[in-house]
């Protein structure tokens, strides 16, 4: 399997504080990777570097499908291949649900509005929102909004999907519906990197689980390796803290 994402020696500093240090990570096409770890461990910062919502320090490189992720003419192309789902949905509140999903394909891929609409309706059906296509984001529940956000990201037919704590802002009863959509997606062969606190989801869906702490990757492995036989002390500490409550 070829690498769709190659991260080499990536670091990020806020003044003197090292948010990320010396990250090396390759992700193969179609892989589902869950990134876990305590708050402030650099999980979100790491995936936000992959589409350059955060810059990273000189000396490191990130490549998506061989294209370096850096400011410049290639950046929009990289971003078009990398979809992102945010903790706070970030839907466009002044557009209908349908228009939210149609916008980027029309502007970036130059799809006709007919094609974009057909695809958007199809995607909204896949995430179970087709009834709400003409509503505005403010009229939907959090879980519905997040599913629209997933459809919006999928409309660009990205090679990679980044999820930045997609269920952390949701009421508990809505977490399931969003995770269900993500679970279905994981079966379709799209590469997914999911920053999450949902250990059950990570164990069940991930091909690989990465544990971060203090801006570093502490341990990476299959869900069985990480959850059942963690090698590192810090992994054991974190897991016992999140699993035994």
């Amino acid at each position: 399997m070829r690498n769709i994402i190659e991260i080499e020696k990536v670091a990020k500093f806020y003044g003197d504080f090292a948010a990320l240090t010396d990250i090396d990570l390759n992700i193969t096409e179609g892989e589902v990777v869950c990134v876990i770890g305590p708050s402030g461990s650099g999980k979100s910062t790491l995936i936000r570097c992959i589409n350059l919502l955060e810059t990273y320090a000189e000396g490191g490189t990130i490549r998506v499908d061989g294209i370096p992720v850096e400011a410049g003419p290639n950046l929009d192309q990289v971003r078009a291949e990398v979809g992102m789902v945010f903790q706070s949905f970030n839907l466009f509140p002044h557009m209908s649900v349908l228009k939210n999903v149609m916008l980027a394909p029309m502007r970036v891929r130059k799809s006709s509005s007919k094609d974009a609409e057909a695809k958007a309706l199809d995607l909204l059906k896949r995430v179970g929102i087709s009834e709400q296509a003409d509503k505005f984001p403010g009229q939907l529940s959090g879980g519905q909004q997040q599913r629209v956000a997933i459809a919006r990201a999928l409309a660009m037919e990205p090679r990679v999907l980044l999820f930045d704590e997609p269920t952390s802002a949701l009421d508990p009863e809505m977490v399931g519906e969003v995770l269900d959509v993500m679970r279905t997606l994981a079966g379709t062969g799209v590469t997914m990197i999911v920053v999450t606190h949902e250990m059950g989801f990570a164990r069940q869906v991930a091909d690989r689980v990465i544990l971060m702490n203090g801006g570093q990757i502490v341990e990476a492995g299959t869900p069985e390796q990480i959850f059942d036989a963690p090698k590192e002390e810090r992994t054991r500490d974190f897991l016992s803290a999140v699993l035994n409550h």
Partner: protein
Amino acid sequence: MDLFETFFNVPVLVRTFPLLISGLIVTLQIGITSIVSGLVLGLGLALVRMYAPAALRLPVMIYIDIFRSIPLLVLLIIVYYALPFIGIRLSPFLSAVVALTLVSGAYTAEIFRAGIQAIPKGQFEASRALGLSYKDMMVDVVLPQAIKIVIPPLTNNCINVMKDTALASVVAMPDLLKQATQAQALAANPTPLIGAAIIYLAFLWPLVTLVSRFENRLNQRGA
């Protein structure tokens, strides 16, 4: 002669009314031209002020501060009476429009900046993550949301520009105020001045109440 005869002399008003109307048309021409060019200038300045490299941002910040500080009347007189000394001769109409636009652009820039900065960071991030170009992000996502926020203060600014057009009478522009003062001199009666005041009120009062209504609606939505 009683008070009514002096200030609301109907024959005088009827006689001078065409003059006042021609003045009103000039006033509207100056006002609308300045408002539209001030909006364009202001949007451009706001975008440069926020997103351009530092070397461009600084002069724009200085521009905005200067033109918000200088009294409009002083600026107008400089444009009309001082610039000819360096060979720039503008008609009274252009002088008024230039002075009003320069000042209105500075205020409008600050209004647009506040509006754009009120848009949550997540909207920019979502646009960029989708691969939208800077232009598409601004046109499709940011500005439509910012417009709603800036409409009340922009309308306020329009009212101010409209009121300030009266200063054009100083540079011999036959606007509403100038026509009224001339008519007053001709008729030896102040009724045309009162007429002009009423005309100003008649088209600016509705705008003022409109702003209040916008603001109330925004407040309700915010609550």
